[in-house]
Every structure is written in C-alpha cells, then in structure tokens.
C-alpha cells in the first residue's frame, strides 16, 4: 500500500505501511514471505536462524490458550549456510524490506549469522535475544544486560545494516535491557517476544507442550506488551516495533500511542489470514483521517504528552 499517511521510516528503512510480519510466523520460505508482503505487510521478519540446523521440538509445539496461543516450536531452522539461498531468493521476490531474525549461543555466533544474512541481502537483522523456550540462547541472553551488550556490540561491528534487538517481557525491568541495547549501538527495538507460559491438560494430568514451557502470544499478552512499549518509550530514544497481540487497527493504534513507530503482527496471521495487514492498514488510515492527522508518525507516543 503506497499511502503517505502510512509510510514510516524506522532505523533508516522505509516501510510502505507500519505493519510488519513478526518472526516465526510462516517466514521459512521466500514464497511465504511474499504472501505476507502481498497481504499488506510493510516489512517482513524471517523465522529465527542460527549457525547450525535445528529440527525444533517434537509436537505438540503449539497449543490454544484462552485468548492466545502457547508455542514451543524450539527454533527449527536449516542453519544460515543453507538459508542464504532462500534469503537471496526472498530478496529478489520481495517488494518490502527483508529483516532476518538471528539467534546464537554466543555473541560470535550472532555476529557470524548476521554477517552472512546481510551478505545474502538482509535489509536489517533482528536479534532474537528473547526466545523463552530454548536453553542458552534467546532470553538467557536478553535477560542479562552484560551478555546483551556484548552480543549487540559484536553484531554492530560485523554488519553495516540496522540492528534491531527483540526484547523479552520475562524480566524484572525491561527498560534496563532497552538501555543496554541502546548503549551498545542498537538501531531499533522490537517489544515484545512471547510471555513464558505453560498449558496443562486435566484429564491426562500432563503439561501439553513437549517442551512443557512455551511462550504465550495473541490477545492475552497485548496489555503486557503495551506496558512494555510504554515504559521503553520513556527510557530510550530508539524507535520501537510494538509487538504482542495485535489483531486489528485499534490494537495497532494503541501501540502507536504508547510509543511504537511501527508494529509487528504474529498470531493474528493464523487467526485472520495474511491479509490481516491490509485490514489493519486500512483501519489505521481511516482513524488518522478521522482524527485529521497527516501521518502515522504524528501519533507515535502521543499518550505520553501530559
């Protein structure tokens, strides 16, 4: 959608619309990313990719909760050396910025994968330091300001493209991590990844997910995500991708008002279909017109005014 109302610039990337695809939703194949871009996404984030292939956890990996989903997919990915081919193809297909989500077990791994992703055409990398269900990576790094600083510094040294840090809500004070990322040179933040959760089945008296613990997404986490965006907006100057439970335009506008410059949508792609981005964009545009704004940028952080 080329609509100046909805155009945003975040970390030097121009997005035709402020709604991006969140990592881990579709996003393995170039064609699935194109599907989402055609559905109105202003940018796409790939499934998280690491150095070596991982098969992920056995099923059940995704379970329905009362107002969202709990997943412990376990970062299945083919490894960056295989994935570069898909990325090159994706870059050739996509009319929108390609953001590659990266994870690693060490700062060096994050840097190596980021470098290869950028060489393959990534317009930015998003560091997944917030996956709640894989040991020694993800939130184990994103919960520790020192480790996080090291990871961001090494990735910044390795690539010339924008570096986005995706924060975990599973911390005592998210602003501490946001500041660490900012000081280490991050260009933007994604707030938030999933909220650690468990699903239990009463008849079998078992935890349902094969990994037991997983991450909650969808409408259930929206208020938590909003609070995180609100707090982070006040703590740092970095632009924010708001993420967590966004399903319709009203949710998106709430995130803009809380301080997000753009949003990412995950779970709603399954519940609503890949055209959910168009629906949200249309709703945001008519909200902006109704309120007589010329651009979505004008409402970012608006509720912090007084």
């Amino acid at each position, binding site marked *: 959608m080329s609509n100046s109302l909805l155009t945003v610039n975040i970390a030097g990337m121009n997005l035709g619309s402020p709604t991006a695809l969140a990592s881990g*939703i579709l996003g*393995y194949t170039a064609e699935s990313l194109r599907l989402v871009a055609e559905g109105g996404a202003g940018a796409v984030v790939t499934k998280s990719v690491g150095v070596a*292939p991982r098969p992920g956890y056995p*099923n059940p990996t995704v379970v329905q909760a009362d107002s969202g989903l709990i997943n412990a997919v376990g970062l299945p990915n083919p*490894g960056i050396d295989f994935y570069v081919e898909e990325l090159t193809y994706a870059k050739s297909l996509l009319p929108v910025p390609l953001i590659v989500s990266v994870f690693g077990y060490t700062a060096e791994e994050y840097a190596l994968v980021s470098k290869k992703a950028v060489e393959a055409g990534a317009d930015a990398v998003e560091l997944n330091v917030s996956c709640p269900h894989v040991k020694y990576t993800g939130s184990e790094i994103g919960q520790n300001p020192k480790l996080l600083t090291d990871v961001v510094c090494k990735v910044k040294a390795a690539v010339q493209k924008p570096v986005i840090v995706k924060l975990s809500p599973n911390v005592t004070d998210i602003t501490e991590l946001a500041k660490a990322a900012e000081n280490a040179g991050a260009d933007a933040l994604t707030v938030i990844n999933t909220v650690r959760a468990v699903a239990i089945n009463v008849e079998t008296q078992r935890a349902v997910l094969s990994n037991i613990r997983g991450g909650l997404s969808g409408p259930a986490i929206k208020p938590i995500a909003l609070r995180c965006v609100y707090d982070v907006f006040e703590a740092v100057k970095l632009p924010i991708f708001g993420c967590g439970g966004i399903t319709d335009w009203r949710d998106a506008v709430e995130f803009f008002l809380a301080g997000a410059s753009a949003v990412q949508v995950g779970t709603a792609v399954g*519940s*609503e*279909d890949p055209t959910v981005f168009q629906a949200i964009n249309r709703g945001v545009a008519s909200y902006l017109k109704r309120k007589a704004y010329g651009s979505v940028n004008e409402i970012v952080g608006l509720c912090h005014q007084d």
Partner: protein
Amino acid sequence: MKLSGYATKINTLRTTAIVGIKDESPTVKTYTLQDDLCSKAKPGQFLMLWIPGIDEIPLSILNGGNGQVQFSVKAVGDATRHLHDMQIGDLLGVRGPFGNSFTETRGRVLLVGGGTGTAPLLFLAKRLAAKIDRLSFVVGAKTRKELVFLEELDAMCTDESAIATTEDGSYGLHCLATEPLESLLDKQKFNMIYACGPERMVRKIFDIAEKRKLPMEASLERLMRCGIGLCGSCMIGKYRVCKDGPVFKMAQLSEIKNELGISKLGFDGSRIDI
C-alpha cells in the same frame, strides 16, 4: 473473543477416550473417538491427534457422524506405533477439524488412493454415492497386507469392482496404482479425478490429468505443527497445506509443479527430496 478467522473452539484441545479399534490390516487400524466437532468434518479435512506424552500428528478423517469420528492409522514410527499399542478407554487429545475439503461433483468420478491415503477418498465416496452417475476406484499398496478398505470400496463402485494393484503382485494387478489409469481413461470419460496417497503417485496422476486436460483434486501431506496456518512448516509453494489445503485443485497443483512429488520442507525447514 477477537480471534475471529478460525473458531478458537476448533483449535482447543479436547481429551477423549478411544471407543473403538478395528484392525484393517496387520499394519493399519481404525480408531473411533467421541468428538462433536470432528464428527461434523467434511471429506478431505484432517485432525491433529495428541498421543499424550509422545507426539501430536495429523490424520485424515475417515468418517464422521453421530458425535463420533474415525481415522485410520498405519504404524510407521514412534507415534503411530504407540497409538497401535493403545486400548479402548485410553485417552487421546484431538483438535480440528482443519483444512478444506474435496468439492463434490456430479457425473462420473474416478478415485485413486494409495495406502492410508485411501481413507479420505472412501469418506468422499460415501458422500458422493447417492449423487453421481458413476464411481470408479483404483487403490494401490505395496503388498496385499497393506491394501485396506477393499470390501467397502467394492460396495461403493457402480459397475465393476474396485481395481486393486500391489507393487509385489500379492493381490490384484502387479503394478503401481497409476498404471491402470491410462487404459481406464481411454475407455471412459470422467468428470473428475480425486487422488490421495504417496506424493509421487499423486504427481503421476497429475501429469496424466494435465496431459488429458481432466479436472483433478488431490489431498497432500506436509509436516504439520500448528495446523492453523501460522507456523509455516507445511508450505508448498505459496500455499499452507494445513489451511489452504490439504485438498488442491488442478490449477493450484500446476502452480506447485516444481515441488509436487519432488521436494518438501523437513523438520529443520531445509528442503528434502520426496
């Protein structure tokens, strides 16, 4: 509730006891469960079956009605073997039904099934029987022991009995299920071909149907995790098999020609040969 595109009820895990087990062959068993939602499934749809503590796997629905649902399972690995060891009264988890279904046509139809892929076609045949002029069935398996539903299929066919093929010649014609097709299609006009089974078989049928410009629908299998169009594990071309499929029409099959019967995504998202 805001999640409106799919009913969250369908995706909510229900636990239910096995109420029936039938041996179809030494390697295939049919299970009956009590489940309202899946009992209303249409031919072609599938469910996700949770074998507690072991795995969750996709299975085509064989039949539904009166609050009950049936599916047939071939023991091939860990999850399906565990299932084969279970007894009446044991608890299973189920969510679904998921995916689209076969379109019901009129006139003369040809159904081609391979192995347990015959299950959704049998379900379809039962629904079609009263409405169509002619129904022909070709079923194939590696060996006699794996040929399932033969009697039921014979009863469904209009003129002749179902054509059975085995790869080892232990029953019926000694060939692949695709072999009798050309002569069948030479002899008679069909309005639709429905296919389900090993993907290389489906591919061969697609090639034949394309050459003869015949309409076709095929049910495909891919690795499934979420079952609701979210995780991307089941992509084939631009389609999500769990949500846009599992049944694909001729025009869609043409779009995914470079993957159909050739490659698929593995557990780690890399492309593997079929």
